């Protein structure tokens, strides 16, 4: 292959990760490229046609569950909205608002139904297994596999049922069953994959999931602070905020300790550190608000009119920014940890149930 830029053709399917980026598959002259965006970095994984052992694909019920949730919540909230709109007689603006409200739920429902059933597709090579996130829809995955299959068979040859039933024993030297297969691409340096060793302190990612879920909880808390200020006593709001803050700080420190055990990818590490920065910023803001409300010139008027020295606009602004930041951090963190856990599962390591196998090693690889 020349050193010129490789020309890639985009394959169908994509996996969009809100606030982070997306995964896409591209077809190169002799390989499939998985391009993953993580904020402003794009990482690449190449699966050469000569190395691909198998694709596995199985249907999942995620799409059905998503449809059920969207339909139930959308229908319920729409009924409530219509009932409210019609309570004081026909009201066109209120009905329009109700219709818009329903659309927020029913449009994703329609799109999800149109996209078809969901699935999980993995590619297997001799050394590892990779979950192909862009192929999350059954129809798309089948089309892409139908496209790739002849290309791979053009390089490796066709695996017949007889050869498969006979197993590797029927392939002296390991290559007999592969009429089109040449020498291993990486030649002299190819070695057996090292067996994964069992680590007593293996992290499971649960703490990180709890952390990002807690960060995400700041969204309803801030919205509550914004919209229920008139009816909620300030002491209740303060207690809720303090509990949340303590939980985030504690979980962040435990999560950072777990980072030291390794195993997490850069993206999860980055978002964990960002969570710490966010928690510290929240501590600073709460500290400033409390100081100025306690010792400021209008400290007695805080409960009636909100933070007096910095003004109502500052209070609203801080809450809006907090909603945006916590949503971005929480959602992206949860997605990244989910992807990381999926990667472990796909490679045959079950993070949630680490069990020392006989001899101290657990099995490497697997399907």
């Amino acid at each position: 292959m020349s050193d010129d830029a490789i020309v890639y053709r985009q394959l169908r399917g994509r996996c969009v990760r809100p606030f982070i980026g997306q995964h896409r598959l591209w077809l190169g002259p002799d390989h499939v490229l998985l391009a993953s965006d993580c904020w402003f970095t794009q990482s690449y994984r190449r699966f050469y046609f000569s190395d691909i052992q198998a694709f596995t694909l199985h249907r999942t019920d995620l799409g059905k569950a998503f449809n059920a949730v969207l339909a139930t919540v959308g229908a319920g909230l729409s009924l409530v909205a219509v009932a409210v709109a019609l309570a004081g007689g026909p009201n066109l603006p209120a009905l329009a608002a109700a219709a818009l409200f329903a659309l927020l739920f029913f449009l994703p429902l329609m799109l999800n139904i149109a996209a078809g059933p969901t699935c999980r597709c993995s590619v297997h090579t001799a050394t590892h297994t990779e979950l192909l996130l862009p192929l999350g829809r059954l129809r798309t995955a089948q089309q892409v596999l139908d496209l790739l299959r002849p290309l791979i068979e053009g390089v490796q040859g066709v695996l017949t049922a007889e050869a498969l039933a006979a197993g590797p024993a029927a392939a002296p030297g390991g290559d007999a069953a592969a009429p089109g297969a040449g020498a291993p691409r990486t030649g002299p340096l190819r070695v057996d994959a090292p067996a994964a060793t069992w680590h007593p302190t293996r992290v499971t990612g649960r703490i990180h999931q709890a952390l990002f879920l807690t960060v995400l909880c700041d969204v309803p808390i801030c919205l509550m602070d914004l919209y229920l200020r008139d009816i909620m006593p300030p002491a209740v709001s303060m207690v809720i905020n303090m509990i949340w803050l303590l939980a985030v700080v504690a979980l962040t420190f435990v999560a950072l300790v777990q980072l030291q055990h390794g195993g997490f990818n850069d993206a999860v590490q980055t978002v964990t550190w960002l969570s710490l920065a966010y928690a510290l910023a929240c501590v600073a803001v709460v500290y400033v608000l409390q100081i100025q409300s306690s010792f400021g010139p209008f400290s007695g008027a805080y409960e009636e009119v909100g933070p007096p020295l910095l003004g109502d606009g500052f209070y609203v602004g801080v809450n809006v920014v907090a909603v945006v930041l916590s949503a971005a951090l929480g959602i992206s963190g949860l997605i990244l940890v989910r992807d990381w856990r999926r990667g472990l599962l796909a490679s045959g390591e079950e993070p949630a149930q680490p069990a020392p196998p006989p001899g101290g090693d657990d099995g490497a690889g697997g399907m």
Partner: protein
Amino acid sequence: MDTEHLICPACRARLGTGHVNAGLAACPSCDTSLRVDAFPALLRGTARGREPEPVVVDGESSCYYHPHYKVEAPCDECGRFLCALCGIDICGKHLCPACLASAQAGERHPWLVTRRVLYDGMALALGFAPLLLFLFCWPVTLITAPLIVFLCVRYWNAPKSVVPRGRWRMPLALLLAGAQFVAWAGVAAVMLFALFG
């Protein structure tokens, strides 16, 4: 993965060979629709590297890194003699480990690139973020606008994404930065006009 591990991804039940390359079919154990496309590499397994041959005749060319091993082929990049242990065949080239490492670090070959920073996306995000949070973040444009210009000038010719990607992001980010500069100039002009009539 090998033939012993042909199992249903959903229930981990062992699959018969009849399920392989048979299109979408139901798992006999959990009834999940699944498809397994296998290729001859499944039976090939992981190939072991060849053993390098020792130098037996005096004066015979030897490997640059292992003087006691016989040369198999020179490196396509630096021309050093390499034994079977040192040569790496990758995408039609025979490289030594040092050239492979330097090629990967210097991103000389597109097929060795594993990561790229997308400066154009960074500049565009810096341009749009203050606009999306305009109400509360507009003073930030004093910092982001010059930063956008710096990113665009510094990384205009930096290697872009390996996959096809439109080149409209940096010009658009520059336009946004220009608009922010114009807005600040307008604000400054209004303030000067108000102060000095």
